[in-house]
């Protein structure tokens, strides 16, 4: 339940943001991270950004997700 995913803030108005992770986009709020800026990569949990993440760390997680997704489709195809 405490899982959070890294995503980039691609729109920001007040504390209302749209975030993107590997092309998946959803709404999130930055109320708990008042210094968050457009373009920042943040950890999102249950619709709220809770921490900034550096780019490298986020990439590792995204690559892992992509790997899991590919594993899934290989299994499905093969």
């Amino acid at each position, binding site marked *: *339940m*405490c899982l959070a995913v890294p995503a980039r803030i691609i729109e920001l108005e007040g504390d209302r943001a749209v975030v993107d992770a590997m092309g998946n986009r959803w709404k999130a709020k930055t*109320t*708990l991270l008042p210094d968050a800026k457009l373009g920042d990569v943040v*950890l999102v*949990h249950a*619709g*709220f950004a*809770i921490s900034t993440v550096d780019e490298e760390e986020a990439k590792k997680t995204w690559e892992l997700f992509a790997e899991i997704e590919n594993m899934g489709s290989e299994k499905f195809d093969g």
Partner: protein
Amino acid sequence: MLDRVAQAQHTIEEACRGLDRQITVMEVCGTHTVSIFRSGIRSILPDKLKLLSGPGCPVCVTDQGYIDTMMRLADRADCLVATYGDMIRVPGSDGSLETRASRGNVKVVLSSEDALQLARDNPEKTVVFIAVGFETTTPATAVVVQEAAREGIENFCVLSNHKLVIPAIRALLGGMNDRIDAFLCPGHVSVIIGSGAFREIVRDYRRPCVVAGFEPLQILEGLAEICRQFAGGTAEVKSMYKAVVTEQGNIAAQRIVAECFEPVDGYWRGIGKIAKSTLALKEQYRRFDAFARFGLEDKPGKEIRGCRCGEVLCGLMDPIECPLFGTRCTPQKPIGPCMVSSEGTCAAWFKYGRRN
């Protein structure tokens, strides 16, 4: 990356070789439990290092009394119950939220914001948000309570069962299971409370507390750090998840939680009452407290007959020792919450146990 795996494994093996007894490390986070099982980490650890899953899955630690209260509210025609997906299949003494969802008054939400939106969209109903979760999840509830107060959304309330991880660790070490030698501390809880929050455990109980992220490598390096401390005879707080965890945590989140909530005595499955371990809304937000609004009391429920989830949660027995495990209790037809939740210890043992 393979270098780091080999190095961590080497540190663990070297440290364990020098030990004259088995050491027990407990993780208190459902996401760690799943990652440890899925990656097969247990299978490469020496016999002298035993891993236990503790009370870290919020669904699993929720007392039966709370679950039955939640069902009673879902049975009311004037209520709309909004819950995170994790809680939907947990069995009460009479069915689950899932069995009630067909009547249209239970909705699964991905965010507390969605629950508040349901209240805006359904003015004729009282929306009850099932606020379950540890410190990572609490701030999201606090934000919407303040939003509801600001906007005057009076048909919204929360049934708070937000739990605190430090009092649970203290309850274990203070008597429930003092054989635990060290803790692998939850990464995303620590984003909020800060790694510094675990200093009191080190100070009062001299147990290493190592914060780790959720990738197998980070977990392995966390275990290596624990072993390194054991070999050196030290006990410290250390974070292996510096990318997002700071010593002081997320101050803005802590502030908003402190504005809305205060710690009260609360019930945990299998552990019982733990002092100041559960968050209740403060007086100024009492009108958004579902317990107060419906005149309900947070009291312990009757445990499910034959279910040993409580002992599993305290690390006192492995799931496989429970007579229901894998026979009457399976992920398809769960009896206890540790089998219901995908992050539950029993579900992890059932799914991955054979290769661990």
